[in-house]
């Protein structure tokens, strides 16, 4: 790249190959070191995030256990293993929380859903999504209180035909310019409630989880 003539060895294929290989090795080493040094902190942050979002969907009053400790691995026939977090008071399960996934406008929307023993929604929060900023991201509690509208609803007090956005004849608001996002969220929450109803006896059984040792 400079105007000075390059030394002859730099014209050889071997030099180019070594250079490329050297940089690839250097990059791989740096990434490996980076990964090793950040893996533990990232896992810790993610666990903190998980606990923070769990405590948003399960009020502190209904449990006296550490929510991260009582985890039940629920494996259904077709689905992947689902982690269900049980909230316990004394020895009985008062509420459960589990992750649900909605199909949004731009990929999966991961959410956590908390359901009380009576089948009422205690809370729903979006964990990650890739929806359009300014449009679909109003499902986040930071941007709008839309998601709080699900609190207290259940399959008993809200008939199945109402579990749609208003555009589709249901009772939930869509956002101007973004219908696909709330439609997916409503559908996923409805499915979460269906799952809870179908597996109520197992989910609310305190003996199902072996309490993990606190780390």
């Amino acid at each position, binding site marked *: *790249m*400079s105007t000075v003539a*390059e030394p002859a060895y*730099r014209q050889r294929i071997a*030099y*180019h190959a070594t*250079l*490329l290989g050297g*940089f*690839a090795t250097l*990059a791989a080493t*740096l*990434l490996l070191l*980076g*990964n090793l*040094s*950040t893996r533990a*902190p*990232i896992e810790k*942050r993610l666990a903190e*995030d998980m606990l923070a979002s769990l405590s948003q969907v399960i009020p502190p009053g209904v449990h006296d256990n550490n929510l991260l400790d009582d985890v039940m691995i629920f494996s259904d026939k077709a689905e992947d293993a689902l982690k269900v977090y049980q909230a316990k008071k004394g020895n009985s399960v008062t509420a459960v929380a589990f992750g649900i996934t909605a199909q949004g406008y731009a990929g999966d929307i991961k959410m956590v859903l908390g359901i009380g023993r009576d089948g009422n929604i205690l809370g729903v929060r979006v964990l990650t999504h*890739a929806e*359009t*900023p*300014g*449009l679909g991201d109003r499902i986040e509690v*930071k*941007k709008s209180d839309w998601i709080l509208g699900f609190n207290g609803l259940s399959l008993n007090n809200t008939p199945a035909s109402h579990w749609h956005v208003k555009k589709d004849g249901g009772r939930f608001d869509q956002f*101007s*310019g973004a219908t696909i996002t709330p439609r997916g969220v409503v559908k996923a929450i409805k499915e979460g409630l269906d799952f809870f109803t179908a597996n109520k006896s197992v989910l609310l059984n305190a003996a199902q989880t072996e309490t993990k040792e606190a780390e």
Partner: protein
Amino acid sequence: MKVKYSRILLDGLWHNNIVFGQMLALCPLLAVTSTATNGLGMGLASTAVLLASGLSVSLFRGLITAEVRIPVFVLIIATIVTLVDMGMNAWMHELYKVLGLFIPLIVTNCAILGRAESFASRHSPLPSMLDGLMMGLGFTFALVLLGAVREMLGSGTLFANASLLLGDGFSFMEMELLSGYKGFLLVVLPPGGFLVLGFLLAGKRLLEARLKQRKQQVIRKDLLIENPATT
């Protein structure tokens, strides 16, 4: 090669601005500038990567041959972006939750490869870092400007959610310019980004044409004063 620092500064911020001058990086530009705050976050993250890639490319420029430079530059940039991504996730988690979405997008920013190729590979580390910084700030300026115009027209606010990005101390930046404004959806969507960018570019050309005209008038006046006989 002799380097004029003032020239690097002006080139990065205005004359050769990544967006308004080189017309690069339009993909992340249109994707994130629906609000001014998003633009600011993306701009600052890109600036950090430009600075680091400018330094590393410049340090290794004696080793790298012309034949394999592109894969090596791409490797360096991708490594830096990934390290920034992991480091922010681990140690600046709150900021990562806001910016995390944008960081992988930086790899798609051809402007960073462009600066590595056209500047950092030919200059020593200090000018290369300054170039990275100035190009990054110029890019941030373009992102914030485009984001601000789109946000004002599209949703009637300015710097909404700035406190999420910069901390609670900056909540004074959040403004609602027109209360009860219904919003103009087209401007928020990607086609609106193209339209607004077009108008901004036209505005820049107009401004430059005016400045040039004025300069010529001044020169003509000077000539008149010096030798009035020639006219």
